Protein backbone atom coordinates (compact mmCIF):
# COMPACT_ATOMS: atom_id res chain seq x y z
CA UNK A 1 0.00 0.00 0.00
CA UNK A 2 2.73 2.39 0.92
CA UNK A 3 4.59 1.95 -2.26
CA UNK A 4 1.49 2.52 -4.23
CA UNK A 5 0.83 5.69 -2.26
CA UNK A 6 4.27 6.91 -3.07
CA UNK A 7 3.77 5.92 -6.62
CA UNK A 8 0.65 7.97 -6.69
CA UNK A 9 2.44 11.02 -5.45
CA UNK A 10 4.98 10.62 -8.17
CA UNK A 11 2.24 10.21 -10.64
CA UNK A 12 0.57 13.36 -9.53
CA UNK A 13 3.79 15.26 -9.75
CA UNK A 14 4.49 13.96 -13.18
CA UNK A 15 0.96 14.67 -14.25
CA UNK A 16 0.94 18.22 -13.01
CA UNK A 17 4.25 18.76 -14.70
CA UNK A 18 2.87 17.37 -17.88
CA UNK A 19 -0.25 19.48 -17.67
CA UNK A 20 1.73 22.63 -17.06
CA UNK A 21 3.83 21.85 -20.08
CA UNK A 22 0.64 21.48 -22.01
CA UNK A 23 -0.36 25.03 -21.29
CA UNK A 24 2.59 26.38 -23.20
CA UNK A 25 1.62 24.74 -26.39
CA UNK A 26 -1.01 26.28 -28.65
CA UNK A 27 -2.53 23.60 -30.77
CA UNK A 28 -3.99 24.30 -34.16
CA UNK A 29 -7.43 23.11 -33.25
CA UNK A 30 -9.06 25.98 -31.41
CA UNK A 31 -10.26 25.75 -27.89
CA UNK A 32 -13.81 26.81 -28.64
CA UNK A 33 -14.25 24.03 -31.13
CA UNK A 34 -13.08 21.41 -28.70
CA UNK A 35 -15.21 22.84 -25.95
CA UNK A 36 -18.26 22.71 -28.15
CA UNK A 37 -17.86 19.11 -29.16
CA UNK A 38 -16.84 17.92 -25.74
CA UNK A 39 -19.86 19.61 -24.29
CA UNK A 40 -22.00 17.93 -26.91
CA UNK A 41 -20.71 14.53 -25.88
CA UNK A 42 -21.21 15.10 -22.20
CA UNK A 43 -17.68 15.85 -21.09
CA UNK A 44 -17.91 17.97 -18.02
CA UNK A 45 -14.82 19.47 -16.63
CA UNK A 46 -13.98 22.80 -15.10
CA UNK A 47 -10.33 22.29 -15.74
CA UNK A 48 -9.31 23.72 -19.07
CA UNK A 49 -6.12 21.78 -19.16
CA UNK A 50 -7.99 18.68 -20.05
CA UNK A 51 -9.28 20.53 -23.04
CA UNK A 52 -5.77 21.13 -24.14
CA UNK A 53 -5.03 17.50 -23.78
CA UNK A 54 -7.97 16.56 -25.90
CA UNK A 55 -6.94 19.12 -28.45
CA UNK A 56 -3.46 17.78 -28.65
CA UNK A 57 -4.39 14.22 -29.06
CA UNK A 58 -6.39 14.88 -32.19
CA UNK A 59 -3.62 16.37 -34.31
CA UNK A 60 -1.14 13.83 -33.06
CA UNK A 61 -3.17 11.27 -34.81
CA UNK A 62 -3.46 13.33 -37.93
CA UNK A 63 0.13 14.23 -38.24
CA UNK A 64 1.43 10.78 -38.49
CA UNK A 65 -0.08 10.24 -41.87
CA UNK A 66 2.62 9.63 -44.40
CA UNK A 67 2.53 11.16 -47.82
CA UNK A 68 2.74 8.58 -50.53
CA UNK A 69 3.35 10.92 -53.43
CA UNK A 70 6.15 13.18 -54.30
CA UNK A 71 3.96 16.10 -55.25
CA UNK A 72 2.29 16.26 -51.86
CA UNK A 73 -1.32 16.45 -52.85
CA UNK A 74 -3.46 14.76 -50.32
CA UNK A 75 -5.98 12.61 -52.10
CA UNK A 76 -8.79 10.40 -50.93
CA UNK A 77 -6.78 7.39 -51.83
CA UNK A 78 -3.92 8.25 -49.53
CA UNK A 79 -6.30 9.26 -46.85
CA UNK A 80 -8.25 6.03 -46.91
CA UNK A 81 -5.05 4.05 -46.71
CA UNK A 82 -3.73 6.11 -43.84
CA UNK A 83 -6.96 6.04 -41.94
CA UNK A 84 -7.18 2.29 -42.24
CA UNK A 85 -4.09 2.09 -40.07
CA UNK A 86 -5.96 3.89 -37.38
CA UNK A 87 -9.00 1.75 -37.68
CA UNK A 88 -11.13 4.17 -39.66
CA UNK A 89 -12.56 2.46 -42.71
CA UNK A 90 -13.13 4.99 -45.42
CA UNK A 91 -14.74 4.10 -48.70
CA UNK A 92 -15.03 6.90 -51.20
CA UNK A 93 -16.97 6.58 -54.45
CA UNK A 94 -14.88 7.25 -57.51
CA UNK A 95 -17.54 9.06 -59.45
CA UNK A 96 -21.13 10.12 -59.26
CA UNK A 97 -23.66 8.60 -61.58
CA UNK A 98 -26.59 10.53 -62.98
CA UNK A 99 -28.90 7.56 -63.14
CA UNK A 100 -28.82 3.93 -62.12
CA UNK A 101 -28.31 2.95 -65.77
CA UNK A 102 -25.06 4.85 -66.20
CA UNK A 103 -22.22 2.62 -67.23
CA UNK A 104 -24.45 -0.23 -68.19
CA UNK A 105 -24.24 -2.03 -71.50
CA UNK A 106 -25.98 0.17 -74.08
CA UNK A 107 -27.83 -2.73 -75.63
CA UNK A 108 -29.51 -3.63 -72.39
CA UNK A 109 -30.35 -0.03 -71.57
CA UNK A 110 -33.82 1.02 -72.57
CA UNK A 111 -33.87 4.55 -73.88
Amino acid sequence: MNSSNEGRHDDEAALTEFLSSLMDYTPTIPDELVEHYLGKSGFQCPDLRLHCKARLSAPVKDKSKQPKEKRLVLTMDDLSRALREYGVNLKHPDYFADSPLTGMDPSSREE
Partner: protein
Amino acid sequence: MSDGGKQSGVDNESSSSTKKKQKGGDDFGRSVSRIAVAQICESVGFQSSQRSVLDTLADVTIRYICSLGKSAHYYANISGRTECNPYDVIQGLEELAGSAQGFSGASDDNRCLSSSGVVRDISQFASTAEEVPFPRVIPRFPVVRTLKTTPSFAQMGKTPAGKHIPDWLPAFPDPHTYVHTPVWNERNTDPRADKLEQARQRRRAESSLLSLQQRIACYGAAVSVPSDNANDSKGKQVAENNPFLVPPLPYDSKQVSGVAIPKYDIAKKRFSVLETFAPAIEAAKAGALECRAIERRSLPSKRAPVHFRIGVDKKSISVPLSSGVLGNKSDSWFLRDDQKDDKKRRAEMILKEAMENPQELIQL
Protein backbone atom coordinates in the same frame (compact mmCIF):
# COMPACT_ATOMS: atom_id res chain seq x y z
CA MET B 1 7.38 23.66 -45.75
CA SER B 2 6.07 25.91 -48.40
CA ASP B 3 2.90 27.85 -48.23
CA GLY B 4 1.92 26.36 -51.53
CA GLY B 5 -0.72 27.24 -54.01
CA LYS B 6 -3.64 26.56 -51.79
CA GLN B 7 -5.09 29.14 -49.50
CA SER B 8 -6.43 26.72 -47.03
CA GLY B 9 -8.19 29.07 -44.68
CA VAL B 10 -9.94 31.28 -47.19
CA ASP B 11 -10.88 28.49 -49.56
CA ASN B 12 -12.34 26.40 -46.84
CA GLU B 13 -14.51 29.11 -45.54
CA SER B 14 -15.82 30.21 -48.88
CA SER B 15 -16.52 26.67 -50.02
CA SER B 16 -18.14 25.77 -46.76
CA SER B 17 -20.46 28.71 -47.02
CA THR B 18 -21.65 27.58 -50.44
CA LYS B 19 -22.03 23.97 -49.47
CA LYS B 20 -25.45 22.54 -48.99
CA LYS B 21 -26.51 21.77 -45.48
CA GLN B 22 -25.75 18.16 -44.81
CA LYS B 23 -25.83 17.66 -41.09
CA GLY B 24 -27.65 20.87 -40.53
CA GLY B 25 -26.93 23.19 -37.66
CA ASP B 26 -23.35 22.20 -37.13
CA ASP B 27 -21.90 23.96 -40.12
CA PHE B 28 -19.93 26.48 -38.19
CA GLY B 29 -18.11 23.92 -36.13
CA ARG B 30 -17.49 21.87 -39.19
CA SER B 31 -16.00 24.70 -41.18
CA VAL B 32 -13.82 25.71 -38.26
CA SER B 33 -12.46 22.21 -37.94
CA ARG B 34 -11.91 22.15 -41.68
CA ILE B 35 -9.70 25.18 -41.40
CA ALA B 36 -7.78 23.67 -38.54
CA VAL B 37 -7.31 20.40 -40.39
CA ALA B 38 -6.13 22.16 -43.50
CA GLN B 39 -3.59 24.02 -41.45
CA ILE B 40 -2.33 20.82 -39.96
CA CYS B 41 -1.98 19.26 -43.39
CA GLU B 42 -0.08 22.27 -44.56
CA SER B 43 2.23 22.12 -41.58
CA VAL B 44 2.93 18.47 -42.28
CA GLY B 45 3.98 19.32 -45.78
CA PHE B 46 1.01 18.92 -48.07
CA GLN B 47 0.68 21.68 -50.57
CA SER B 48 -2.85 20.95 -51.63
CA SER B 49 -5.53 18.40 -51.18
CA GLN B 50 -8.85 17.37 -52.51
CA ARG B 51 -11.84 19.04 -51.02
CA SER B 52 -13.50 15.83 -49.98
CA VAL B 53 -10.33 14.85 -48.19
CA LEU B 54 -10.54 17.94 -46.04
CA ASP B 55 -14.16 17.25 -45.31
CA THR B 56 -13.34 13.73 -44.29
CA LEU B 57 -10.50 14.78 -42.05
CA ALA B 58 -12.65 17.41 -40.43
CA ASP B 59 -15.31 14.82 -39.85
CA VAL B 60 -12.78 12.43 -38.36
CA THR B 61 -11.47 15.13 -36.07
CA ILE B 62 -14.92 16.01 -34.85
CA ARG B 63 -15.78 12.38 -34.25
CA TYR B 64 -12.54 11.89 -32.41
CA ILE B 65 -13.19 14.78 -30.10
CA CYS B 66 -16.73 13.60 -29.47
CA SER B 67 -15.78 10.04 -28.74
CA LEU B 68 -12.95 11.16 -26.53
CA GLY B 69 -15.33 13.26 -24.50
CA LYS B 70 -17.82 10.45 -24.33
CA SER B 71 -15.36 7.88 -23.11
CA ALA B 72 -13.82 10.26 -20.59
CA HIS B 73 -17.25 10.98 -19.25
CA TYR B 74 -17.97 7.30 -19.10
CA TYR B 75 -14.86 6.60 -17.05
CA ALA B 76 -15.73 9.40 -14.71
CA ASN B 77 -19.22 8.03 -14.31
CA ILE B 78 -18.16 4.53 -13.45
CA SER B 79 -15.86 5.97 -10.85
CA GLY B 80 -18.85 7.62 -9.27
CA ARG B 81 -18.11 11.15 -10.39
CA THR B 82 -19.78 13.60 -12.70
CA GLU B 83 -16.75 15.74 -13.43
CA CYS B 84 -13.87 14.35 -15.38
CA ASN B 85 -10.33 13.84 -14.24
CA PRO B 86 -7.16 13.96 -16.21
CA TYR B 87 -7.02 10.26 -15.60
CA ASP B 88 -10.36 9.83 -17.17
CA VAL B 89 -9.13 11.59 -20.23
CA ILE B 90 -6.02 9.46 -20.34
CA GLN B 91 -8.06 6.36 -20.08
CA GLY B 92 -10.27 7.60 -22.86
CA LEU B 93 -7.23 8.27 -25.00
CA GLU B 94 -5.94 4.84 -24.31
CA GLU B 95 -9.22 3.38 -25.34
CA LEU B 96 -9.25 5.28 -28.59
CA ALA B 97 -5.66 4.86 -29.48
CA GLY B 98 -5.38 1.38 -28.14
CA SER B 99 -8.15 0.03 -30.32
CA ALA B 100 -6.17 0.86 -33.43
CA GLN B 101 -2.48 1.05 -32.88
CA GLY B 102 -1.80 0.20 -29.32
CA PHE B 103 0.59 2.02 -27.08
CA SER B 104 3.47 0.99 -24.95
CA GLY B 105 2.55 -0.57 -21.65
CA ALA B 106 -0.96 -1.56 -22.60
CA SER B 107 -0.65 -5.09 -21.53
CA ASP B 108 0.62 -4.16 -18.11
CA ASP B 109 -2.07 -4.71 -15.51
CA ASN B 110 -0.90 -2.42 -12.79
CA ARG B 111 0.40 0.24 -14.98
CA CYS B 112 0.52 3.79 -13.89
CA LEU B 113 -1.58 6.04 -15.99
CA SER B 114 0.64 9.06 -15.98
CA SER B 115 3.52 7.11 -17.38
CA SER B 116 1.44 5.50 -20.05
CA GLY B 117 2.60 5.59 -23.58
CA VAL B 118 -0.16 7.92 -24.62
CA VAL B 119 0.85 10.58 -22.20
CA ARG B 120 4.43 10.22 -23.21
CA ASP B 121 3.52 10.59 -26.84
CA ILE B 122 1.57 13.70 -26.19
CA SER B 123 4.23 15.32 -24.08
CA GLN B 124 6.79 14.48 -26.70
CA PHE B 125 4.63 16.01 -29.36
CA ALA B 126 3.97 19.11 -27.34
CA SER B 127 7.61 19.70 -26.68
CA THR B 128 8.91 19.07 -30.15
CA ALA B 129 6.21 20.08 -32.57
CA GLU B 130 6.00 23.51 -34.11
CA GLU B 131 3.14 25.65 -32.95
CA VAL B 132 0.70 26.63 -35.64
CA PRO B 133 -2.01 28.69 -34.04
CA PHE B 134 -5.46 28.96 -35.53
CA PRO B 135 -5.62 31.95 -37.84
CA ARG B 136 -8.94 33.42 -36.80
CA VAL B 137 -10.49 34.45 -33.57
CA ILE B 138 -13.51 32.35 -32.88
CA PRO B 139 -16.29 33.29 -30.52
CA ARG B 140 -17.67 30.85 -28.06
CA PHE B 141 -20.25 28.87 -29.87
CA PRO B 142 -23.01 28.01 -30.06
CA VAL B 143 -24.06 31.53 -29.24
CA VAL B 144 -26.80 31.48 -26.69
CA ARG B 145 -29.47 34.02 -27.40
CA THR B 146 -31.62 35.02 -24.47
CA LEU B 147 -35.20 34.76 -25.49
CA LYS B 148 -37.40 37.72 -24.89
CA THR B 149 -40.10 36.21 -22.77
CA THR B 150 -43.47 37.72 -22.21
CA PRO B 151 -43.47 39.48 -18.86
CA SER B 152 -45.57 37.94 -16.16
CA PHE B 153 -48.47 39.59 -14.42
CA ALA B 154 -46.32 40.47 -11.48
CA GLN B 155 -43.66 41.98 -13.69
CA MET B 156 -46.19 44.08 -15.52
CA GLY B 157 -47.69 45.22 -12.28
CA LYS B 158 -51.14 44.11 -13.27
CA THR B 159 -53.48 41.91 -11.34
CA PRO B 160 -54.69 38.96 -13.37
CA ALA B 161 -58.22 38.89 -14.64
CA GLY B 162 -59.48 36.11 -12.44
CA LYS B 163 -58.61 34.85 -9.00
CA HIS B 164 -57.72 31.48 -10.45
CA ILE B 165 -54.84 32.95 -12.43
CA PRO B 166 -51.54 33.20 -10.53
CA ASP B 167 -49.54 36.31 -11.11
CA TRP B 168 -46.30 34.59 -12.11
CA LEU B 169 -47.86 33.50 -15.39
CA PRO B 170 -47.21 35.60 -18.51
CA ALA B 171 -49.60 38.48 -18.90
CA PHE B 172 -52.44 38.56 -21.40
CA PRO B 173 -51.73 40.43 -24.61
CA ASP B 174 -52.98 43.98 -24.96
CA PRO B 175 -56.60 44.28 -26.07
CA HIS B 176 -55.68 46.18 -29.20
CA THR B 177 -54.04 43.07 -30.55
CA TYR B 178 -57.23 41.09 -30.66
CA VAL B 179 -60.08 43.59 -30.58
CA HIS B 180 -60.83 45.25 -33.85
CA THR B 181 -62.58 48.59 -33.57
CA PRO B 182 -63.66 50.09 -36.87
CA VAL B 183 -62.13 53.42 -37.73
CA TRP B 184 -64.60 56.12 -38.70
CA ASN B 185 -63.74 59.29 -40.49
CA GLU B 186 -64.64 61.99 -38.02
CA ARG B 187 -64.56 64.83 -40.53
CA ASN B 188 -67.97 65.99 -41.81
CA THR B 189 -67.99 65.89 -45.55
CA ASP B 190 -69.71 68.84 -47.13
CA PRO B 191 -70.14 68.02 -50.80
CA ARG B 192 -70.99 71.58 -51.76
CA ALA B 193 -67.94 73.02 -50.05
CA ASP B 194 -65.79 70.32 -51.61
CA LYS B 195 -67.04 71.16 -55.07
CA LEU B 196 -66.47 74.86 -54.53
CA GLU B 197 -62.96 74.20 -53.31
CA GLN B 198 -62.30 72.00 -56.28
CA ALA B 199 -63.59 74.63 -58.70
CA ARG B 200 -61.48 77.27 -57.03
CA GLN B 201 -58.35 75.20 -57.36
CA ARG B 202 -59.05 74.51 -60.99
CA ARG B 203 -59.56 78.17 -61.66
CA ARG B 204 -56.27 78.98 -60.03
CA ALA B 205 -54.47 76.40 -62.11
CA GLU B 206 -56.08 77.73 -65.23
CA SER B 207 -55.11 81.30 -64.54
CA SER B 208 -51.50 80.34 -63.97
CA LEU B 209 -51.47 78.31 -67.15
CA LEU B 210 -53.03 81.18 -69.00
CA SER B 211 -50.49 83.66 -67.74
CA LEU B 212 -47.77 81.32 -68.92
CA GLN B 213 -49.32 81.17 -72.33
CA GLN B 214 -49.62 84.91 -72.45
CA ARG B 215 -45.98 85.28 -71.70
CA ILE B 216 -45.13 82.85 -74.41
CA ALA B 217 -47.40 84.63 -76.84
CA CYS B 218 -45.84 87.96 -76.01
CA TYR B 219 -42.44 86.93 -77.33
CA GLY B 220 -43.61 84.25 -79.61
CA ALA B 221 -45.04 83.94 -83.02
CA ALA B 222 -48.53 83.19 -81.80
CA VAL B 223 -51.52 85.38 -82.13
CA SER B 224 -52.95 86.75 -78.97
CA VAL B 225 -56.51 87.38 -77.99
CA PRO B 226 -58.20 89.80 -75.69
CA SER B 227 -58.96 87.73 -72.70
CA ASP B 228 -62.29 87.66 -71.10
CA ASN B 229 -61.76 86.88 -67.49
CA ALA B 230 -65.22 87.65 -66.43
CA ASN B 231 -66.48 84.38 -67.77
CA ASP B 232 -66.53 81.70 -65.12
CA SER B 233 -67.18 78.55 -67.03
CA LYS B 234 -64.06 76.49 -67.47
CA GLY B 235 -63.95 75.24 -71.03
CA LYS B 236 -65.05 78.36 -72.77
CA GLN B 237 -62.69 80.47 -70.75
CA VAL B 238 -59.68 78.48 -71.83
CA ALA B 239 -60.73 78.58 -75.43
CA GLU B 240 -61.38 82.26 -75.46
CA ASN B 241 -58.24 83.25 -73.66
CA ASN B 242 -56.06 80.98 -75.71
CA PRO B 243 -54.04 83.28 -77.88
CA PHE B 244 -53.50 80.56 -80.44
CA LEU B 245 -57.18 80.14 -81.14
CA VAL B 246 -57.90 83.75 -82.01
CA PRO B 247 -57.80 85.17 -85.51
CA PRO B 248 -54.80 87.33 -86.23
CA LEU B 249 -55.05 91.09 -86.32
CA PRO B 250 -55.17 92.52 -89.79
CA TYR B 251 -52.09 94.26 -91.01
CA ASP B 252 -51.70 97.92 -90.13
CA SER B 253 -54.52 97.86 -87.60
CA LYS B 254 -52.06 98.56 -84.89
CA GLN B 255 -49.23 101.00 -84.91
CA VAL B 256 -46.09 99.57 -83.54
CA SER B 257 -42.75 101.11 -82.98
CA GLY B 258 -40.03 100.30 -85.36
CA VAL B 259 -37.51 97.71 -84.44
CA ALA B 260 -33.96 98.86 -84.27
CA ILE B 261 -31.84 96.22 -85.78
CA PRO B 262 -28.29 96.73 -84.53
CA LYS B 263 -26.49 94.60 -87.04
CA TYR B 264 -26.45 91.35 -88.74
CA ASP B 265 -24.00 89.47 -90.83
CA ILE B 266 -24.18 89.88 -94.51
CA ALA B 267 -22.97 86.40 -95.12
CA LYS B 268 -26.16 84.54 -94.52
CA LYS B 269 -27.16 81.48 -96.40
CA ARG B 270 -30.46 80.59 -94.84
CA PHE B 271 -33.39 82.47 -93.51
CA SER B 272 -34.11 82.18 -89.91
CA VAL B 273 -37.58 81.29 -88.82
CA LEU B 274 -37.70 84.57 -86.98
CA GLU B 275 -37.12 86.61 -90.06
CA THR B 276 -39.73 84.77 -92.01
CA PHE B 277 -42.37 85.29 -89.41
CA ALA B 278 -41.37 88.72 -88.28
CA PRO B 279 -44.70 90.34 -89.12
CA ALA B 280 -46.55 87.70 -87.18
CA ILE B 281 -44.29 88.23 -84.26
CA GLU B 282 -44.92 91.94 -84.39
CA ALA B 283 -48.62 91.44 -84.50
CA ALA B 284 -48.46 89.08 -81.60
CA LYS B 285 -46.54 91.56 -79.60
CA ALA B 286 -49.08 94.21 -80.38
CA GLY B 287 -51.93 92.01 -79.32
CA ALA B 288 -50.14 90.99 -76.22
CA LEU B 289 -49.80 94.58 -75.21
CA GLU B 290 -53.51 94.98 -75.39
CA CYS B 291 -54.44 91.92 -73.41
CA ARG B 292 -51.75 92.47 -70.95
CA ALA B 293 -53.43 95.61 -69.79
CA ILE B 294 -56.20 93.51 -68.39
CA GLU B 295 -53.77 91.23 -66.67
CA ARG B 296 -52.04 94.19 -65.11
CA ARG B 297 -48.58 93.12 -66.10
CA SER B 298 -45.84 95.58 -66.62
CA LEU B 299 -44.43 95.79 -70.09
CA PRO B 300 -41.80 97.98 -71.59
CA SER B 301 -43.26 100.81 -73.60
CA LYS B 302 -40.57 100.55 -76.15
CA ARG B 303 -39.81 97.24 -77.63
CA ALA B 304 -36.38 95.82 -77.13
CA PRO B 305 -34.22 95.45 -80.18
CA VAL B 306 -34.38 92.07 -81.72
CA HIS B 307 -31.08 90.38 -82.31
CA PHE B 308 -30.86 87.88 -85.05
CA ARG B 309 -28.06 85.47 -85.12
CA ILE B 310 -27.42 84.28 -88.59
CA GLY B 311 -24.89 81.57 -88.94
CA VAL B 312 -23.13 80.53 -92.06
CA ASP B 313 -23.55 76.79 -91.85
CA LYS B 314 -26.08 76.35 -89.17
CA LYS B 315 -29.69 77.12 -89.05
CA SER B 316 -30.53 79.82 -86.63
CA ILE B 317 -33.74 79.24 -84.88
CA SER B 318 -35.87 81.49 -82.85
CA VAL B 319 -36.26 80.73 -79.23
CA PRO B 320 -39.47 82.36 -78.22
CA LEU B 321 -40.41 79.86 -75.59
CA SER B 322 -37.78 79.39 -73.01
CA SER B 323 -36.23 82.79 -73.11
CA GLY B 324 -39.63 84.39 -72.84
CA VAL B 325 -40.29 82.41 -69.77
CA LEU B 326 -36.93 83.23 -68.37
CA GLY B 327 -37.56 86.90 -68.89
CA ASN B 328 -34.47 87.75 -70.88
CA LYS B 329 -35.52 90.46 -73.17
CA SER B 330 -32.50 91.65 -74.98
CA ASP B 331 -30.44 88.59 -75.57
CA SER B 332 -33.27 86.20 -75.82
CA TRP B 333 -32.81 85.29 -79.40
CA PHE B 334 -29.37 83.85 -79.13
CA LEU B 335 -29.37 80.16 -79.02
CA ARG B 336 -26.96 77.49 -78.19
CA ASP B 337 -26.31 75.05 -80.96
CA ASP B 338 -27.46 72.03 -79.13
CA GLN B 339 -30.96 73.38 -78.55
CA LYS B 340 -31.56 74.65 -82.02
CA ASP B 341 -33.38 71.72 -83.53
CA ASP B 342 -35.66 71.35 -80.58
CA LYS B 343 -36.62 74.99 -80.55
CA LYS B 344 -37.13 75.07 -84.27
CA ARG B 345 -39.49 72.18 -84.09
CA ARG B 346 -41.47 73.75 -81.32
CA ALA B 347 -41.66 77.10 -83.02
CA GLU B 348 -42.85 75.55 -86.21
CA MET B 349 -45.49 73.62 -84.35
CA ILE B 350 -46.81 76.71 -82.70
CA LEU B 351 -46.93 78.56 -85.95
CA LYS B 352 -48.76 75.75 -87.58
CA GLU B 353 -51.30 75.75 -84.81
CA ALA B 354 -51.76 79.44 -85.12
CA MET B 355 -52.47 79.07 -88.79
CA GLU B 356 -54.86 76.22 -88.35
CA ASN B 357 -56.67 77.53 -85.37
CA PRO B 358 -58.70 80.17 -87.09
CA GLN B 359 -60.60 77.29 -88.65
CA GLU B 360 -61.05 75.64 -85.29
CA LEU B 361 -62.46 78.76 -83.89
CA ILE B 362 -65.36 78.53 -86.24
CA GLN B 363 -66.24 75.18 -84.78
CA LEU B 364 -66.22 76.60 -81.30
